[in-house]
């Protein structure tokens, strides 16, 4: 108990059964921060899959990027609608099971394989090979996984529910790449996360020459390379106009002095 309270005090995730014993605190749960998580290794924890098989997280990320969501089946709050929205986004983007794997992991030790099957069935995902439902095989594994993702959850005795954020993380070969926090991931955002997880370059503004900007320095064509654009004149204008203003000013002063 003392150890659990100490863990809670320093912001570590609280174990499942123990969490329900832990006293409620007023401290707000911390939301994971993508910048702090980037590149962090996620532990290869043992899992118990919804179909009853045992395995490890690395079995899932060995071949393709993994999108990992943390939920619990008895959630009366965000978990179920969150999974529904995530399923819709994945359906729109496509490629689950081939290009990437969706992995839903329960952080509630009460969740048994049959609970996870029911959760998958509720969303029509029980036979979708792009989706895997599982729970850590041990509380130590769960603790290690949650700690590695800075994922905090806390038992609310009054509501008989866990407080927790809704997150999905993108992993590439066991390392953190991107994070989505909140109720919905747009298809565009999901594609960005996927591209990042596949090691592709994701630009945050247009490449040189890409349409959209009113003025551009250069245009780029893979065959012709870089060519100056009219926007380049904006770089000539300050010098030319400063010289012109100075010349006009000196001429005006001469005229006035006569």
């Amino acid at each position: 108990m003392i150890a659990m309270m100490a863990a809670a005090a320093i912001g570590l995730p609280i174990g499942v059964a123990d969490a329900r014993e832990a006293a409620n605190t007023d401290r707000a749960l911390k939301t994971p921060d993508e910048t702090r998580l980037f590149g962090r290794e996620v532990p290869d924890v043992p899992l118990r899959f919804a179909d009853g098989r045992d395995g490890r997280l690395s079995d899932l990320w060995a071949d393709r990027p993994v999108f990992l969501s943390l939920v619990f089946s008895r959630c009366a709050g965000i978990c179920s609608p969150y999974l529904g929205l995530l399923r819709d986004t994945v359906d729109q983007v496509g490629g689950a099971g081939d290009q990437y794997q969706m992995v839903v992991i329960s952080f509630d030790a009460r969740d048994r394989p049959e609970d996870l099957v029911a959760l998958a069935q509720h969303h029509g995902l029980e036979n979708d090979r792009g989706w895997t439902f599982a729970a850590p095989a041990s509380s130590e594994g769960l603790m290690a996984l949650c700690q590695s993702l800075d994922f905090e959850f806390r038992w609310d005795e009054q509501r008989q529910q866990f407080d927790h954020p809704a997150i999905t993380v993108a992993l590439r070969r066991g390392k953190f790449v991107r994070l989505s926090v909140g109720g919905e991931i747009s298809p565009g955002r999901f594609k960005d996360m996927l591209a990042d997880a596949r090691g592709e370059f994701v630009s945050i503004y247009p490449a040189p020459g890409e349409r959209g900007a009113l003025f551009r320095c250069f245009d780029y064509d893979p065959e012709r390379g870089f060519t100056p654009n009219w926007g380049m004149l904006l770089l000539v204008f300050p010098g030319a106009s400063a010289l012109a203003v100075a010349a006009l000013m000196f001429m005006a002063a001469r005229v006035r002095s006569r």
Partner: protein
Amino acid sequence: MSDVPSGEAPSAIAMSAAEERAANRLTLLWVIPLVVLFPTFILFGMTLRTAQSNLAPIVSAEWFYSIVTMHGLGMVGLWFVAVMAAVCDVIRKYVRLHMWANWTAFLGTIVGVVMLLTATMIGRYGAGWYFLYPLSIHPAGVWADWSTYTFLLANGVLGVVWTIWSLDVLWGIARRYSLPNALSWHYITGEPGPEVPPFILIVTVSLIANLTGLISAVIMLALYALELTGVTDVSDALLMKNLLFLFGHLLVNIIMYLGAGLVYELLPEYAGRPWKNGRWTAVAWNLVLLLIIIAYFHHLYMDFAQLNLVQLIGQVTSYGVAIPSAVVSIYGVLALTWRARMRWTMTSIMMYCGMAGWCVGGIGALIDSTIAFNSKFHNTLWVPAHFHTYFLVGVVLMILGAIFHACEKLSGIPENVSRSRLAIWLICGGGYGFVLMFYLAGAMSIPRRYALYHEVISAGTYLAGTALVFISLVLAGVLLYLWETGRRCVVAFKKV
């Protein structure tokens, strides 16, 4: 107008007692922002190095970048207005200026600085003094939108009032000299013309270049406004970076050139010899005007999308703009002081040391502007090393010397030799120690713009800690200087 440059001192213009009094009062008023802001911005810098040294976890990463923004932009802005105030004080004997332009600059600067402090210290705007696109307007929730608008508006206010100020000084020169004469072309061609002080030449060159930078800033702010108001969806990042450094590089260099101009004008008073204009001085400073506008390309060596030809132009012009002006100026100072009956005072020592610092920092800058070296040094602390050298122990000393000169002259209080020597020793000794830590860190590939150092670059931590000792010496020296200058300023204000 005389037929040939006679070699005699150009005649001073007559001012009424009331005009003289009003101009002197405003010069003295400009000392107030210096007294308040210089130590404040030094403390900001100390905060940054303290955070990097791990000696005290006093700021978060977000705060670190807000303070970096204010420290950088604040220092550049402070020294621009300080050097312009000193230039206006000195140039009044040659040309007539409008008081309203100087007052507009003074009041506008105060408004701009308050807005910048609000944006960074309250709104936590933290895109750095260079506020590179797209971070500058896409903060990802780190700072509020209002602070972005306030920051950009502050730059707009400062840009407008500084443009008015620059134009007024140029107009004053234009009323006395033709453009070819102000640029000393008759010294190059050997044709007849009036005697033109090198100070006038340097100010003319600098202010035309300054106009270029300010127009560039206007275009950049207009593009920001188009995007922020939804007229355009996005801006070209490379174009924005070019515009930013066309403005920023020019602003920083103009401060140095105007500082050098003050040395050309004031140091002869202490040497007892005139510093005359001549062919090579004219050639060097006209080259500056021609090349400074395109030398900024060396800030974009890391931008692969910039054409290779442009990068080469950046390297060639960096050398072309730095060497002539520096060689002519350094040779001029050495020739002026060699076997002269020098009066070594706070002003003359600061100006002499300032030229030396300009030279040292300039060499660091030239190394950094060489593509082969830049590819190694660009993202390291070598960059802050060289610009802190030519600022802190370079042009800042020149400007401080000029300001002390004005306050000493107007107050009539003679210099306290022991205190002035101590202040100079503290600023120079501390300053060189401080920049040495940056140079060593740069040589060790310690990255710049990092709030905290990873253990693999932990050398940055103890170098930052050591730098703190030296900055403390600088701060002590600056406070002593400000005490000496400030009390003369108060007495002078009562007298005039």
